[in-house]
């Protein structure tokens, strides 16, 4: 029922109600009509019998059977009359109207009233001043009642059918009338949900639906205005971001050349004048050389980070298993030296993604897992599980872990939790990973326990599904 539309529900419920009413009419009224007809027949039979018995007193008292027939002539006009039998105190027939019919239906079947379904029989005593003179037996045919009952059944059946048909039609029309404004609202809501914030509902009534339509229109207008403001802000932000990325790209790219000159000069200084500057001079030259190298690393990372945004993500079916194997192979030396183990299942899926960027993500995560290791040889596990309409990948290690307060910081560019001397690097790896994942429409997060290890997870939407 939850998936059934309101109009269908209304129509169905009203139809059930109409059907119940029609059934009630069909069942109740013919029976009631028949019962009332039988009651009327019984009343008529009793009345006619009593009147006839009353009028039959003189003929019985005077022993005048011919007069009894005169008395019978009145009720005999009624074509429903089946018979009349007047018996004396001994039970002998004194006078009778249609005696054969009376004998056929058994007029002595019982005193009082009785019926065999064909004839309604009444028997009343004829008496004078408390003294019994005889008995009058009268029968009324029930054929007219049966015929009229059958006609009533047919008429009621027709009426029931008409009520049912008209009721169903009325239920459909009524349901349509009620739900049409609702359907307009639903259509407009779907339009808005689909992004068309200009959709409005025409409020033709002042009832609850009219109020709903008006409220919806106000909401849509506010949404449209807010979206416009957001769009403007977003455009501004995008423009600013683009300019920033361009700046970062240009700055990192253009700064590399003078840095290369500085590094070359430092190397020349060290080569030509290394023996004459003394120990302090050599130390200063070393500082300058290390600073140049670190600055180059920073510029390379910054350039790579900005390239991720400027290049955009490709979209081709990518075998994640192959990507992981390739990333593992590129770190084969480090893995071997650290006696690390990298494992993953055979069920890594194929997703629509930029293979190079996805490889970069796994490479950075594996590098971190190998770098931030504990005393024990690193154990790295790569998994993929279905998560709604996306695949969730995770890289789990048993390294040093991250304090819970720093979990978000690790994804910020140039943010480092350790000194360069403890763990070399520029703090851009996870920022690049997060940017790649978000560029693919996914999200990235980390779960970690200090001293126990970390699990970096990210999702890639399964566009194939």
């Amino acid at each position, binding site marked *: 029922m939850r998936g059934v539309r309101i109009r269908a529900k209304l129509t169905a419920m009203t139809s059930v109600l109409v059907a119940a009413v029609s059934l009630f009419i069909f069942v109740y009224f013919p029976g009631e009509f028949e019962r009332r007809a039988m009651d009327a027949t019984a009343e008529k039979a009793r009345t006619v019998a009593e009147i006839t018995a009353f*009028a039959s*007193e*003189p*003929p019985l*008292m005077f022993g*005048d059977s*011919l*007069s009894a027939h005169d008395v019978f002539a009145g009720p005999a006009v009624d074509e429903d009359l089946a018979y009349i039998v007047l018996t004396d105190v001994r039970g002998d027939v004194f006078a009778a109207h249609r005696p054969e019919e009376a004998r056929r239906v058994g007029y002595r079947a019982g005193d009082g009233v009785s019926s065999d379904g064909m004839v309604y029989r009444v028997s009343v005593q004829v008496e*004078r*001043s408390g003294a019994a003179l005889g008995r009058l037996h009268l029968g009324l045919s029930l054929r007219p009642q049966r015929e009229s009952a059958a006609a009533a059944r047919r008429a009621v059946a027709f009426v029931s059918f008409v009520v049912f048909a008209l009721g169903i039609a009325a239920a459909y029309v009524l349901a349509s009338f009620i739900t049409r404004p609702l359907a307009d609202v639903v259509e407009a809501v779907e339009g808005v949900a689909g992004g068309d914030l200009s959709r409005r509902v025409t409020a033709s009534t002042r009832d609850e639906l009219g109020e709903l339509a008006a409220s919806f229109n106000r909401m849509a207008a506010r949404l449209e205005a807010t979206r416009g403001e957001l769009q403007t802000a977003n455009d501004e932000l995008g423009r600013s971001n683009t300019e920033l990325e361009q700046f970062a790209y240009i700055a990192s790219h253009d700064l590399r050349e003078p840095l290369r000159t500085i590094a070359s000069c430092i190397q020349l200084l060290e080569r030509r004048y290394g023996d004459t500057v003394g120990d302090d001079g050599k130390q200063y030259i070393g500082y300058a050389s290390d600073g140049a190298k670190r600055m180059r690393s920073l510029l390379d990372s910054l350039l790579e980070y900005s390239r991720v945004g400027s290049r955009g993500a490709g979209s081709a079916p990518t075998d994640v298993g192959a990507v992981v194997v390739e990333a593992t192979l590129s770190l084969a030396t480090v893995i071997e030296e650290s006696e690390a183990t990298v494992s993953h299942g055979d069920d890594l899926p194929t997703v629509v993604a930029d293979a190079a960027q996805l490889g970069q993500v796994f490479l950075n995560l594996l590098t971190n897992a190998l770098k931030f290791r504990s005393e024990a040889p690193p154990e790295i596990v790569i998994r993929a599980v279905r998560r709604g309409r996306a695949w969730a990948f995770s890289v789990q290690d048993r390294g040093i872990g991250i304090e819970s307060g720093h979990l978000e910081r690790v994804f910020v560019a140039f943010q480092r939790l350790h000194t360069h001397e403890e763990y070399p690097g520029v703090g851009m790896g996870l920022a690049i990973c997060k940017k790649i994942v978000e560029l693919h429409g996914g999200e990235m997060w980390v779960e970690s326990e200090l001293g126990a290890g970390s699990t970096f997870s990210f999702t890639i939407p399964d566009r194939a599904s």
Partner: protein
Amino acid sequence: MPMETHLPICMTALAFDRSLRDRAGDEIVFAILFQPRFLASNSAHEEALRVLDELGVEAIEGIPVRYVSVPVSDERDTERAVFESDADIVYVAPLRAVPLDAITRVTREHDIMTCSGVDAYGRAGLTLTVSARGQRPELVVNYTAMREEGVDFTAQLLAYARVLEFTEGTPEAGAAGRPTP
């Protein structure tokens, strides 16, 4: 109409008089009015007594019945005899030279019901008579006389009987069964 036929009918019809108890009280006096010196009248009287004896009707509607014979000779005698008989019902045998007025004056004044087996007496002003319709006896009620004599027959009886709405007159009774024109 033979006495055996019409007198039981008259006796039966008395049960349909709703005013009988009011008029008669605790005893119904059934008087047979006849002329001893008129053979037909005298014979009718004797025959009536015989039939009544055979019928053995001792009560009507629970009221005891006492039968009396009222011999009359002329008009003046008739009026007095009827009055002194203390009758509630007067059965009139065939009379001669006695006007029915002499009877009906008293009966209508004192609420005494009249009946007879002479067909013409009904048309002449007696309340209840029995005539013949073919082979069948027919009860005849003179409605005017009935009201005048304080008789209240039920609708059943009136429906059963032939009702006369008029009185031809109060002729002097002539030959038996023939009212004086």
